[in-house]
């Protein structure tokens, strides 16, 4: 690095898409996926976060986990904005199949169709699936 004081990452920037397809508490995928996306964003990469299939349940609002003795990590999705992860999407077909709408979600998302998701996936350098 030329500037020793500069703590900004100055390596290559790639387009990363994180495809989240699992419900939040039955498996560890959702929590692990959230941690990895925050780490990736900290390296100043071009990050998109997609919730599809049961992944849309990750961002269901009103989660209250005291009764199952597990950490409620849904508030952490609100930190995505602070990490400059601004491309956050939920798939329309997945929401509709599960009786959910944008009003049910803990963060604002751009709703896109399966066909639009296919196009988005085509534009990425790396797709990471959880």
């Amino acid at each position: 690095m030329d500037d020793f004081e500069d703590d900004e990452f100055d390596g290559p920037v790639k387009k990363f898409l994180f495809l989240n397809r699992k419900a939040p508490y039955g498996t560890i995928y959702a929590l692990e996926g959230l941690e990895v996306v925050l780490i990736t964003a900290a390296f100043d990469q071009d990050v998109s976060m997609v919730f599809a299939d049961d992944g849309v349940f990750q961002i269901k609002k009103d989660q209250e986990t005291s009764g199952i003795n597990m950490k409620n990590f849904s508030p952490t999705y609100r930190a995505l904005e602070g990490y400059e992860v601004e491309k956050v999407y939920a798939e329309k077909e997945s929401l509709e199949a599960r009786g959910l709408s944008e009003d049910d979600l803990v963060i604002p998302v751009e709703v896109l169709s399966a066909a639009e998701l296919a196009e988005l996936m085509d534009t990425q350098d790396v797709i990471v699936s959880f």
Partner: protein
Amino acid sequence: MSILHTVNKSPFERNTLMDCLARAKDGAAVLLIEDGVYGALAGTQASDAIAKRGAIKFYALGPDLDARGLAEKPLIDGITLIDYSGFVDLAEAHNPVQSWL
């Protein structure tokens, strides 16, 4: 004593709810737990399978619904919400217990 079936997987991701309902007789009890509680939601692609089995007694575990943010979402008619002690009561009142893992 009738059978108690338990289902712990989302009906949108696995077939275990359908596998269970194909073998559950009228008069049996079906308890939805963990990710299985997503099957209790009204107005989804999976709702019909439970809604048309009126002769089965359906239960869902409240703490699992609460954890997933579903406490205020409408459930399929006829599903009884229970807590952990209700789970114990069901296990006591039925025999055998079949877990559709």
